[in-house]
């Protein structure tokens, strides 16, 4: 099959010793940073982006693959051991995982999440391998109006459809779109919202926004309520290994979690939290040990964790084949591509097949490395968790500011970082979702240029958006997805199935 020959050539790229080393460094760094409480995968990628500045594109993107999967894995370790999920996608894992850790079964909880992540990641990456060539073939026939319509779907689903409040989600999205306006408009050469500040002419850096919102915002938020909320680390006691019984109770949830995670991640619907909570609810219903739920049931860790990882691999499908990021982490990966002038999409598959397939092959390798490394190294990761909170956040802020000025040595960039930090703090406090801002910033300018390209081809006739059947269908879907949450109150509530 075509997909497998491509994958084989990608594998040849990925197993070059230098690239294996990059993957290993990525996996280790990603896990080490992702394990730190309060740092989710998106921030892990954003913080580590400066390290890859000087590498060649292939090496750096392979390192990214490792960082991405490593960050995911690190996040679930934190969720299990201190019940502070760095991101909403780990929330379901934290529910039963932390209870298991409290009951002295932290080892098996970590093991089932590691092996489940491996199983789900491998199946989902296989899904990506098989699906990508077909989607690329479809995407090639997309005109600019179809891309624009597709981005409208992504905007709506990421911000409004599945959130707690469509108004707050859309507000976040429009703040992102506003930030995307800043800078020189490439088609007309005029500057927008720059107010004569030279640093603003080059657009707002996605990394500065993400690091500001996630790192500075989180630090401000946690510090402001430290007097109320204290974190507690559960020690890993007893055996690390899963018993035969644990295996028997884990393998079906792994597969079911993957079945939820991959398709939902691959649809431009965004957010790993839906499949994780769907998986949690399903396992709770199907379990033969309902008495364990609420006391630390291994199914409640295995399923959501597999769903989380499968959906992370799933989001790579629209990202790589269509250039469409549907989560904050995917937006960061897109920013990583863009720093080399690479634009993910069908063209990249045609022009740089070695790079794309090298990346996909590296995902398999990174996944395997994580499985081999993480269980033996779990003691080390737990040590990272014991860094005192003051030093941890001080270190995060130092690294965040450093990465920002390393990318762009100007005080204005740091002022922006601070402003975004305050924005992130306010958004956390008032429960505005953060991912739509990042997606809006990165996708807004692309959507605008597609729209303008479509309309200049049609000589300004807006009907072109409705005459293309693909575009018309997608716009209809976007409209439905936008209006649905207003009529069906509580579409997002099914994630609140936990009691």
């Amino acid at each position: 099959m075509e997909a497998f020959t491509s994958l084989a050539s990608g594998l040849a790229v990925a197993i070059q010793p230098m690239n294996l080393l990059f993957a290993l460094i990525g996996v280790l760094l990603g896990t080490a940073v992702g394990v730190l409480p309060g740092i989710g995968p998106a921030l892990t990628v954003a913080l580590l982006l400066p390290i890859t500045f000087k590498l060649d594109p292939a090496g750096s993107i392979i390192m990214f693959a490792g960082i991405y999967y490593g960050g995911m894995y690190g996040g679930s370790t934190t969720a299990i051991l201190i019940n502070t999920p760095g991101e909403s996608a780990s929330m379901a894992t934290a529910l039963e995982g932390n209870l298991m850790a409290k009951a002295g079964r932290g080892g098996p909880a970590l093991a089932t999440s590691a092996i489940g992540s491996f199983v789900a990641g491998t199946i989902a990456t296989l899904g990506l391998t098989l699906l990508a060539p077909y989607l690329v073939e479809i995407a090639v026939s997309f005109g600019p109006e179809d891309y624009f319509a597709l981005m409208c779907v992504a905007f709506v689903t990421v911000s409004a459809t599945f959130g707690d409040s469509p108004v707050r989600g859309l507000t976040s999205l429009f703040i992102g779109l506003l930030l995307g306006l800043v800078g020189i408009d490439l088609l007309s050469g005029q500057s927008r919202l720059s107010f004569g500040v030279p640093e603003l002419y080059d657009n707002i850096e996605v990394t500065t926004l993400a690091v500001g919102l996630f790192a500075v915002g989180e630090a401000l938020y946690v510090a402001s309520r430290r007097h109320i909320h204290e974190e507690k680390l559960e020690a890993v006691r007893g055996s690390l290994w899963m018993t035969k019984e644990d295996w028997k109770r884990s393998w079906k949830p792994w597969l079911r979690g993957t079945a939820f995670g991959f398709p939902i991640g691959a649809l431009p619907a965004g957010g790993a939290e839906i499949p994780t909570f769907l998986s949690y609810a399903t396992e709770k219903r199907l379990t033969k040990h309902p008495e364990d739920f609420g006391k630390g049931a291994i199914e409640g860790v295995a399923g959501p964790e597999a769903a989380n990882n499968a959906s992370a691999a799933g989001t790579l499908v629209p990202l790589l084949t269509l250039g469409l990021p549907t989560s904050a982490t995917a937006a960061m990966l897109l920013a990583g591509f863009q720093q080399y002038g690479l634009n993910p999409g069908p063209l990249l598959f045609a022009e740089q097949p070695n790079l794309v397939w090298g990346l996909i092959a590296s995902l398999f390798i990174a996944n395997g490395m994580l499985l081999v490394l993480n269980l033996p190294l779990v003691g080390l990761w737990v040590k990272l968790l014991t860094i005192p909170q003051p030093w941890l956040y001080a270190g995060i802020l130092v690294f965040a500011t450093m990465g920002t000025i390393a990318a762009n040595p100007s005080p204005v960039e740091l002022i922006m970082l601070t402003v975004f930090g305050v924005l992130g703090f306010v958004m956390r406090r008032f429960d505005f979702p953060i991912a739509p801002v990042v997606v809006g910033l990165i996708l807004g300018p692309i959507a605008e240029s597609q729209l303008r390209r479509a309309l200049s081809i049609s000589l300004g006739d807006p009907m072109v958006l409705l005459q293309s059947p693909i575009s018309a269908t997608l716009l209809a879907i976007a409209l439905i997805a936008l209006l649905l949450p207003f009529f069906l109150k509580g579409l997002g509530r099914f994630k609140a199935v936990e009691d």
Partner: protein
Amino acid sequence: MSTSSQRRIDVAGLVIALLLLVLAGVVWWDMTKLQILSPYDLGPKVMPIVVSAGLTLLAIGNVIGALRGDLPARDSLDWKPIFLILGGLASLILLIAFGGGFMIGTAILFATTSAAFGRRAFLTDLLIGAVIAVLIYLLFGKLLTLSLPAGPLENLF
């Protein structure tokens, strides 16, 4: 929980709505200064108009939410750590802007953030921050050859 379940007007929600309205106004005002150059290009004005209109609608949506008390309940806020962190960031920005290099600023940021999280060993933390700054300078500046803003301390290396 400070807010009760009964519906009360949420002042903070109204302030957020007002800020959105101000942003919408700024985007609109900025848009009026743009020129449409090509007759076939939609021009740079359309997206700002969409964003400005969207923000206005969302401001209205946020007002409705605030009047209905839809915003989540908030815990009480401790301002001191917020000022400490922002102060640390401000001193870093000022030091870089006026040629003080980033090392001193980084050490200060480390110490103030640490203090914001409840540590009471400012001088020790200042020293730790300085050591981290030197390490980062060597890693980023020398090994990865990225340019970091230099001041008197950085020039010693």
